[in-house]
């Protein structure tokens, strides 16, 4: 009787402490980028602007959520020997949906993100969560885990993009905030802004993303010392 109750509790679709933990853990102590080291490639390539980072973050949340859910629902039917190929095909299908949707809805972003949308397939966050979580848990929990990890990844992406776009181009979401462009230099009436700031071109280049993520990891570990590498 007690066992049946426990089983019912586990399979029920509620929202208790355990479910909240699934959503909030990936934001801090189990962050996919800064702790699990997953999904670095796209975090570097698409963070030159907030807009691209936001599109990418939404795409990844969509893919992690549904791939976790579908794989978890099928987990007892997938033979172990071919599970990689089955998982990859589930992911690839979802990514193709995202790619075609973007092509139709936001063609500019689609062109700028180019191969990196396709590379969501090999974004280790997706595959890593499938292996680590969805193959062992029910669809509802897996879905929450997928959302949590997608959002945890998206937050880092937006933080990096914020620094890189603000200091690299002086803009946020394409709107000019600080710094000098030729027309701003000529316009002496706009003295309210930080017109003296000259754009740091290093921030637009790839290596700067490495430095920014390194700094985020540094800050994160200084703030949460339990994550520090002992070795």
């Amino acid at each position: 009787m007690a066992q049946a109750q426990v089983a019912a509790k586990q399979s029920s679709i509620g929202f208790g402490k355990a479910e909240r933990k699934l959503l909030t853990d990936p934001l801090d102590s189990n962050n996919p980028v800064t702790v699990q080291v997953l999904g670095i490639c796209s975090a570097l390539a698409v963070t030159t602007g907030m807009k691209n980072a936001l599109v990418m973050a939404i795409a990844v949340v969509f893919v992690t959520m549904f791939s976790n859910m579908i794989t978890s629902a099928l987990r007892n039917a997938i033979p172990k020997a071919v599970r990689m190929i089955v998982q990859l095909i589930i992911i690839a299908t979802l990514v193709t949906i995202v790619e075609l949707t973007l092509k139709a809805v936001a063609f500019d972003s689609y062109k700028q993100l180019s191969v990196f949308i396709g590379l969501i397939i090999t974004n280790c966050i997706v595959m890593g969560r499938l292996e680590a979580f969805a193959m062992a848990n029910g669809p509802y929990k897996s879905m929450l885990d997928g959302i949590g990890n997608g959002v945890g990844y998206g937050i880092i992406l937006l933080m990096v993009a914020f620094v890189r776009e603000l200091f690299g181009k002086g803009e946020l979401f394409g709107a000019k905030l600080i710094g000098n462009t030729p027309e701003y230099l000529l316009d002496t009436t706009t003295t309210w802004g930080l017109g003296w700031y000259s754009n740091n071109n290093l921030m637009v280049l790839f290596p700067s993303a490495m430095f920014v993520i390194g700094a985020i990891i540094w800050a994160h570990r200084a703030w949460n010392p339990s994550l520090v590498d002992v070795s």
Partner: protein
Amino acid sequence: MGELINIFIKSAFIENLALSYFLGMCSYLAVSKTVKTAFGLGLAVIFVLGITMPINWLINNYLLSESGIFQTDLTFLRLILFIAVIASMVQLVEMVVEKFSPSLYNSLGIFLPLITVNCAILGGSLFMVSKEYNFMESVSFGLGGGFGWFLAIIAIAAIREKIKYSQVPPALRGLGMAFMLTGLMGLAFMSLMGIDPSAF
């Protein structure tokens, strides 16, 4: 022939998959703690890139393109087919190596399955499509890209082995430092962009 060598040098040094495009970063950061394991993974990447690139070229040109055997534009299936080829190739390579060279299999062991989700492999195939290489050029691009990735992971593994003896702030130790190092190496590799491969 000269053209092929140019592509090899270009893809290995100037457009290095790891340090110029930052592809395959997950395994690059996770498996670069010692030179020995980095060496094994690097070799496996060269091998798999060299095999999957020509196969994906054939698929792209004879199955998916409009002039292929189905006479229809099937390029929307590209991602699914490419990743299926890569996954099955990795599985096949794993079985062949296990059968014919158990010692190599043991040294590569766990790294072979990891390669499936190394984005340098899929990224290489997608770059090959967008650069419109022909068959031999894609072979050269695959081998060159793999060699460049191999060099990059060996280099960072060697630096990480040495930096263990340095006084790094505790919170930056390990992963944080690896990121900073990769950024610096990326800066260094950017200076290679001025090379004109046709001068060789």
